[in-house]
């Protein structure tokens, strides 16, 4: 039943495709209650981080690896003060600056890794699901095998192997994370494609002589792609955690290349024994806040798009009034 709405739109003439997109995202405007709160709160937090990332050169007091300003060296492990609002760490760098520049790093890596994993996972899922056969079976086996590994281990090993060849930069981190998420997109898209493939409107298109590529592009794609935005947002949240974990374990981004929150938290573990809290607390809170923002956005989206959980403004009233009537009428008609 989730299929009917977008199905109509994909059958619509080319000029009205925008209409289809609008209808696919219709539930967003109709979201009510908690879903709405989550959606907008999440969007707000995420947007704030995006702004911080974009404006990092302007708002950051110092460079991410600066340990001196105006020829004066910063104090080591200084508690938060007027000069250093979040204090300084062992290497005398300003914690606030590292948090701000870190935002840029996290978002860059996540963006790159999402683009790659969607770019690879979605087409593979579409073709594998639509054509089936041997290729499908092999792909499913490989993807399932990838899902067997604890995701972090897979990322660590890939990052470790790549760090020998490519170096520890944004691309390495992004690829390591990508490998974990491609199977997820593949699976969701493939399974959905298989069920769409058997729908009457696809069969009709096939009967009319449409080529497989045309069917995939025009009929299957729009139905399947609806699942991607909520999944991608939730994955983005997950990817931040994976990146931070990689950084924490020392397989993320080289500290000389960019500021990264997970790496900073790792350095803070040795400070904890002497009661120094500011070096770990702020980068850690930044991770939590950004992940919460993305999760709220993703959950809000999936709750508005997923018909099982969806609650529309009118729906509760409608259901309440309609259900009893249905219950009385339906059984009598269906009795054999």
């Amino acid at each position, binding site marked *: 039943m989730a299929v009917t709405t977008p199905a109509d739109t994909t059958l619509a003439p080319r000029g009205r495709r925008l209409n289809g997109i609008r209808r696919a995202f219709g539930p967003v405007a109709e979201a009510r*209650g908690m879903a709405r709160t989550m959606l907008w709160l999440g969007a707000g937090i995420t947007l704030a981080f995006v702004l911080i990332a974009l404006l990092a050169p302007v708002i950051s007091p110092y460079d991410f690896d600066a340990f001196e300003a105006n020829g004066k060296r910063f104090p080591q492990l200084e508690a938060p003060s007027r000069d250093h609002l979040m204090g300084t760490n062992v290497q005398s760098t300003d914690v606030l600056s590292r948090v701000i520049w870190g935002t840029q790093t996290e978002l860059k890596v996540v963006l790159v890794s999402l683009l790659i994993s969607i770019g690879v996972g979605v087409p593979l899922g579409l073709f594998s699901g639509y054509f089936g056969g041997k290729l499908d079976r092999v792909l499913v086996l490989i993807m399932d095998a990838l899902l067997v590994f*604890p995701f972090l281990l897979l990322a660590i090993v890939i990052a470790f192997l790549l760090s020998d060849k490519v170096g520890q930069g944004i691309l390495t981190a992004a690829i390591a994370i990508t490998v974990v998420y491609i199977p997820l997109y593949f699976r969701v898209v493939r399974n959905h494609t298989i069920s769409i493939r058997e729908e009457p409107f696809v069969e009709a298109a096939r009967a009319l002589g449409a080529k497989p590529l045309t069917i995939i592009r025009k009929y299957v794609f729009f139905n399947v792609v609806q699942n991607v935005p909520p999944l991608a947002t939730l994955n983005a949240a997950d990817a931040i955690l994976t990146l931070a974990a990689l950084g924490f374990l020392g397989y993320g981004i080289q500290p000389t290349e960019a500021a990264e929150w997970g790496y900073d938290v*790792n350095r803070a573990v040795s400070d904890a024994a002497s*009661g120094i809290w500011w070096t*770990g*607390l702020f980068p*850690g809170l930044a991770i939590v806040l950004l992940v919460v923002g993305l999760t709220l956005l993703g959950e809000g989206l999936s709750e508005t798009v997923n018909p099982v959980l969806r609650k529309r403004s009118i729906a509760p009233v409608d259901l309440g009034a309609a259900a009893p009537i249905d219950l009385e009428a339906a059984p009598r008609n269906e009795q054999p």
Partner: protein
Amino acid sequence: MASNKGTSLRKYALVRLALVVPMVFVVVTMVFLLMRVAPGDPISASLGGHAPQSEIDRIKTELGYDKPIYQQYVEYLGQLARGDLGTTITDRRPVTDIVRENGAATLELTFYAMIVAIIVGVTFGLLAGRYRDTWIDGTGRLFGIVIYAMPVFFLGLMAQLFFGSYLGWLPTSDRASPIVQATMETHTGLYTVDSLINRDWPAFTDSVKHLVLPAVTLGLVTAGIFIRLIRVNVIRTMKDDYIEAARARGIDERSVVYHHAFRNALVPVITIVGLTVALLLSGAVLTETTFNWPGIGHTLLTYLQNRDYAAVQGIIIVFALVVVIASVIIDFVNAYIDPRIRY
């Protein structure tokens, strides 16, 4: 699988087990290709690139790395079939020994973490689902989201700061005090169990104290998943026809919720436990690093730092096998509970 109708549990089990074989084969092959083909020369990597060529060649011949790659692959498969997971290059330790010794530490950590996760997750998940869209749901979900967003190492760090440095109540690293570790007579490798077997109460309290922070940290983070999934399950179950039917029969709401809805909403918990095994293992790697817990994840990282490809290969395969076995067990339990699953 032509005769699918009326499958018995035994037949289902056999089919499911048969499906494990190709999966394990693919996993092993992938790990082998990744670790052997990609990096070039594992021996000189593990020696740090300073060893003389003659030394490198000697070790290569000794460990069979000078043979063609397909021959190494076939031999490796044969080894695995005999239950030999290989030997580390740097310290010549059989991987099976690592699994036995460090695996016990990981098992102890993850077991207690899972208990914490189930208790916290089921309670919050049921309440949030039952009282959907009330402040209870709001709090429960917020807690679920925040705890999910919390990197396990950050939560661990904060716990160390508060309970370790600030309050000074609990130890923040290792499995037990050095004296206890030195004197503990091991039976199972699980310190909490061993100290009970030995009736050594001080050692028991000591190991429990050491266990509290890591296990609760890992458990709480895992609980986030439980809360989300159980909440959705309760909501879905509450919409089911049989709940409506129970209400229509005049059964009071409390009984409907507790006896009808919750019981069914909790069946998938078994599946969730299975799904979280992989997650828990990932979390264990981080928790072990944060709390200096000498588990298998901690060991893996040490070998990674030493660029010991053979050790990494063996340990990764162990992790994957654990996940595969867990998922098979979960499927069996599910099939036992719910006959519809047996296909």
